[in-house]
């Protein structure tokens, strides 16, 4: 039941915030904060104390018949992996509300409604274990996100919003076909029409069919992740979105792609995924290097961060297809750390744009003198993003590389090159924006440093990234049961030479 509340609270809250926005803008802001905090408390209450892998993976479940005629049920299940991602989702949504306080002044009610509904959709994606329900939420979260970009974005927002929508919707429909073929194959084999993920696991089919179905799912998730060559929507969408939109996109929506790969692609089609792993890992390495290279070439600060996301998400793809305990732990930490550090960078770019009315780094420089706090946080998160030991991103990337080393030395070597490139573009960002001579940005009248709400947000994000980097063990404990179940489902992939993987402590 609590899972239904997790969904219902932000959904209803969105409608409330919309209605309240008509009366007073601040009401919808406060309603959003209350609603999200409430939901966060609900999610926190679900953290299970269990630390051993012997514990059953599912922490909570909820199931009701939905469209019984088609074998579709409203089935929500939560394991450690979902829980961790939902916590990230709610925390970042809460932060999005805080940092939009001054940036969004038009149609405030509708803005917060869309923000909360996006959150609802994403939570639904992380909870749904009925494939139809999953697809429902997968499509549902696009609509409010589209409005966030199209209505409150920057100069080129309509183009970016439509591109985002078309890419994700098109790939989603390919996944729908794959889902349906899978369901009908299962029906012909067992005589039982169902969209239940747990029932569909281990459906027998010939390897060609399995390969095409796997590809259908993979494309949908690879577009969302995004993996090269499906990444072109990302720089536009991230750049044109309002700050809160970029935070939601980078922090949360990209994670749904990674989650899909973990939850569906490999467990449902273990053999096909195993056969496909070299291709996927090649794409991952290309993404890591290509994203970093493009990030290096950007003048627009927001675009730089966006391209760095492609590079970071490449590590996630690499880790998923390495599919061993080390790599998967790394993937989880990388998702969280990327969510935190990239959101922080987008918030800082947004704050900077509010002050100097440009994102172009050619006009920046020497900002440290006038904006010391903002610049200090900027440097901190740039360094986090390049993978400095002691911070979250390092743990993620290191574990992924360690895990993939057992699978393929070649891919690991090339992927490690991404760390060097990350150092280059991150330091370049710091150098061009904060150091050197004072730039010629258009508006020098509003150069005030970060205010208290932003400072609090930044402190929270800093503490999280340090916490992830210094003591990630609670996260590992939380996700271990869920991951081990997934690993057992995707077993065929982890047999063979990969069995040597060192057991995690």
């Amino acid at each position, binding site marked *: 039941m609590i899972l239904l509340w997790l969904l219902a609270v932000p959904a209803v809250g969105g409608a409330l915030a919309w209605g309240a926005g008509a009366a007073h803008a601040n009401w919808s802001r406060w309603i959003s904060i209350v609603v999200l905090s409430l939901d966060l408390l609900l999610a926190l209450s679900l953290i299970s104390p269990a630390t051993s892998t012997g514990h059953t993976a599912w922490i909570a479940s909820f199931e009701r018949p*939905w469209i*019984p*005629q088609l074998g579709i049920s409203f089935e929500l299940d939560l394991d450690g992996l979902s829980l961790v991602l939902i916590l990230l989702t709610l925390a970042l949504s809460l932060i999005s509300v805080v940092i939009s306080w001054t940036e969004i002044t038009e149609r405030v009610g509708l803005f917060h409604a869309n923000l909360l509904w996006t959150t609802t959709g994403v939570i639904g994606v992380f909870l749904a274990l009925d494939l139809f329900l999953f697809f429902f939420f997968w499509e549902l979260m696009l609509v409010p996100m589209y409005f966030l970009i199209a209505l409150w974005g920057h100069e080129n927002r*309509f183009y970016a919003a439509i591109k985002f929508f078309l890419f994700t919707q098109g790939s989603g429909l390919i996944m729908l076909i794959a889902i349906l073929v899978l369901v*009908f194959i299962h029906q012909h084999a067992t005589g039982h029409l169902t969209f239940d993920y747990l029932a569909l696991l281990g459906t027998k089919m010939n390897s060609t069919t399995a390969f095409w179905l796997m590809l259908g799912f993979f494309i949908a998730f690879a577009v969302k992740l995004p993996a090269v060559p499906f990444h072109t929507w990302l720089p536009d969408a991230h750049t044109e979105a309002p700050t809160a939109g970029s935070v939601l996109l980078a922090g949360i929506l990209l994670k749904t792609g990674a989650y899909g790969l973990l939850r569906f692609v490999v467990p449902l089609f273990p053999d096909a995924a195993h056969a496909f792993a070299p291709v996927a890992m090649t794409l991952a390495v290309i993404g890591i290097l290509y994203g970093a290279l493009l990030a290096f070439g950007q003048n627009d600060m927001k675009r730089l961060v966006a391209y760095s996301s492609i590079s970071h998400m490449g590590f996630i793809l690499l880790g998923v297809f390495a599919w061993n305990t080390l790599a998967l732990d790394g993937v989880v930490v990388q998702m969280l750390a990327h969510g935190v550090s990239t959101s922080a960078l987008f918030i800082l770019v947004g704050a900077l744009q509010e002050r100097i009315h440009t994102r172009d780094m050619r006009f920046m420089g020497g900002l440290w003198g006038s904006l010391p706090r903002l610049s200090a946080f900027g440097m901190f998160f740039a360094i986090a993003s390049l993978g400095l030991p002691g911070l979250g991103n390092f743990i993620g990337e290191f574990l992924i590389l360690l895990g993939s080393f057992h699978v393929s030395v070649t891919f690991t070597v090339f992927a490690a090159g991404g760390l060097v490139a990350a150092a280059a573009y991150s330091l370049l960002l710091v150098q061009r924006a904060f150091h050197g001579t004072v730039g010629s940005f258009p508006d020098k009248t509003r150069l005030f440093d970060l205010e208290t709400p932003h400072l609090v947000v930044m402190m929270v994000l800093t503490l999280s990234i340090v916490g992830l980097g210094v003591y990630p063990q609670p996260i590992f404990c939380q996700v271990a049961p869920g991951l081990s179940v997934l690993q057992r489902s995707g077993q065929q992939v982890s047999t063979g030479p990969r069995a040597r993987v060192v057991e995690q402590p």
Partner: protein
Amino acid sequence: MMTAAAFRAFAPFTLLGVLTIVVMLLIAARRDHRLTALSTIIGLSLCCVALFFSAPDAPVPVTPLFIVDGTALFYAGLVFGSALIVAIISYTYLASSAHAVCEEYYLLLLTATLGAAVLPESVNFASFFLGIEVLSISLLGLIAYASPRQGAAEAGIKYLVLSGAASAFLLFGMALIYAELGTMSFARIGVEAHTGDPADLYRLVGVAMILTAVGFKLSLVPFHMWTPDVYEAAPAPITAFIAVVSKIAVFSVILRYFNLADNHGDTSLRLGLAAVAVLSMLGGNLLALLQNNVKRLLAYSSIAHLGYLLVGFLAADSLGNRAVAYYLAAYAVTTLGAFGIISLLSAPGTGRDADRIEDYRGLFRTHPFLAGALTLALLSLAGMPPTMGFIGKFYLVAAGVDGRLFWPVVALVVGSVIGLYYYLRVLVTMAMPVETIPVQRTAVPLFGKAVIAALLVLLVTLGIYPAPAIALIRVTVGHG
């Protein structure tokens, strides 16, 4: 020969016939727009209610021409319901104009509905043809209904000529089949066709000619040329009627013909229909991209939607039939909503409807409710949750996948993605800022808003919880 059960079951349709005569006499007695509209609306509501009383007697044959069964009642319900909504919208539309004569409009609307309502029950070429002709000839009058708008007469003539040609094809096709098999009953044709020579040329050519005529009525590519012009020139409520009522009626009768006459086994016909489906989905959506007129845009989009429906048609099993039933219901609710909003925004006296895409600029500011409603309608057309269009599209893809229709399903997916682009374009326009505040805001009648709100509630409720609708379809349209 007709039993009491048959009389009871056929009562809704008899009632509609009586209603038409009553309204005609009423107009002769007293010319009053409000009175005519009210009696039409009440009469159509009574017809809807009467359907529930015929349900216990179904299935029952009514003369050799008709059968009243679950399928017939379901589609007749859609026809009556849609006609009722068109009548209500028409009242708000015509009441806002200083139009001299608008009583006969309702008479034509009723005869058109009568023609459409007998099609779902038809099991014979005679009733098939009569229904289509009554529908088309009444529509001709409605399209060109005395109006100051330019192009109305032109569109009427265009419809007349092409409709006549289509009818000729239909008759010729029926004649060929009759010449070959000696029967006009759908079921007998199915039986005779199986006993005879499998490659009977007359029958195949006959069916192909019938399909040509039906393709015209359903505006499938390549018989779609008339659609955008007629949609654009007709009054907005009538565009809704053509887009919804006539499509539902014709689709239901051709579906019944194919099921009874067992034409699904003909490979050549299937191949041709699959090609028409793919062409309609791609052609309709691609041409819609080029439109700057919302009515034309929706015309091309309706071509694509009929193409989607053919996927369920080609699946030709119980899943396909149910998918078609749900999709037609979703399409009816959505399209009525969309054209209803266009009607409410239009001022008919000015000679043109609010159909240019610029008319919708900044609609979120000027008419927030209607803009929100149109957003949901467009999302439903695009097949996004939480609307009926999403469930409908899912249903069709499921039917297509189950029927192993690879290319039609691929075309459906590609078409949907293209379609999304132009629906979003309208959305974006509505969200754009307005440079100048329009001098006079057209006041939207509360009555019209209530209809739109009711449609929206249906659209979202059955989009989130479609089980009741699917249960109804299972009971009526059934498993077979």
